[in-house]
């Protein structure tokens, strides 16, 4: 059991290929449901999307699911990009530097996105 749970440590970011593979699939599964939810949810906003988004995000359920979606998207895409780096960057040194830069970029994207969404949510409450 402990060995099984070890496969889930580090969210796919350690050196273990199986761990990476499993988390890539977990995030993919989560995204299937979250994207179906958001596509149907956004249909009501499509008439005046830009102003309606700010009211839509005020609903706590929408806020939590939207934040989850943002985290899962960045997680999945970072794992995918790391996979591409692994396959196509030949020099080990360059691969390591690119991976670190990628992780920093992803962290910044997720930080800015979550912080902004939270700011929109808490603006008038």
């Amino acid at each position, binding site marked *: 059991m402990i060995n099984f749970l070890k496969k889930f440590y580090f969210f796919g970011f350690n050196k273990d290929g199986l761990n990476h593979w499993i988390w890539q699939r977990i995030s993919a599964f989560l995204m299937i449901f979250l994207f179906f939810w958001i596509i149907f949810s956004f249909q009501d906003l499509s008439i005046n999307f*830009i102003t309606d988004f700010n009211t839509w995000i005020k609903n706590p359920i929408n806020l939590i699911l939207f934040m989850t979606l943002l985290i899962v998207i960045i997680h999945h*895409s970072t794992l*995918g*990009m790391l996979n591409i780096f692994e396959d*196509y960057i030949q020099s080990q040194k360059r691969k390591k530097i690119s991976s670190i830069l990628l992780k920093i970029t992803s962290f910044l*994207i997720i930080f800015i*996105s979550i912080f902004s*969404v939270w700011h*929109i949510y808490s603006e008038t409450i």
Partner: protein
Amino acid sequence: MKNNNRPISPHLQIYKPQTTSILSISHRFTGIILYLSTFLISLWLFSSAFNNNLKIILNNFLFSNLGKIILFFITFSFTYHFLNGLRHLIWDFGYGFNIKNVYLTGFIIIILTITINIYIWFF
């Protein structure tokens, strides 16, 4: 002599293009486009929250022709990556591995991607 710079993994330049290989490479390529599009999403959310001028500029840009072309690439990449991702997940469960099904599902995905994008952009 140890050479750290020898070529590894898929040799795209010398690999004979086939439907299956093109679909596989497209999956990665659309993945890269989608990763880059998260920058745009992040910027849009930031502008919505903190900077009204930037928000106006960004929205005007997205409604311009160049913006629409970029959005088209994003929706196209998204639909393709989503559908092909489902195909990959079905493979992970051990289904659809014979060569006939691989080509069939690949064909279905191309048709669906084109249909969905025509629906999104023209209806």
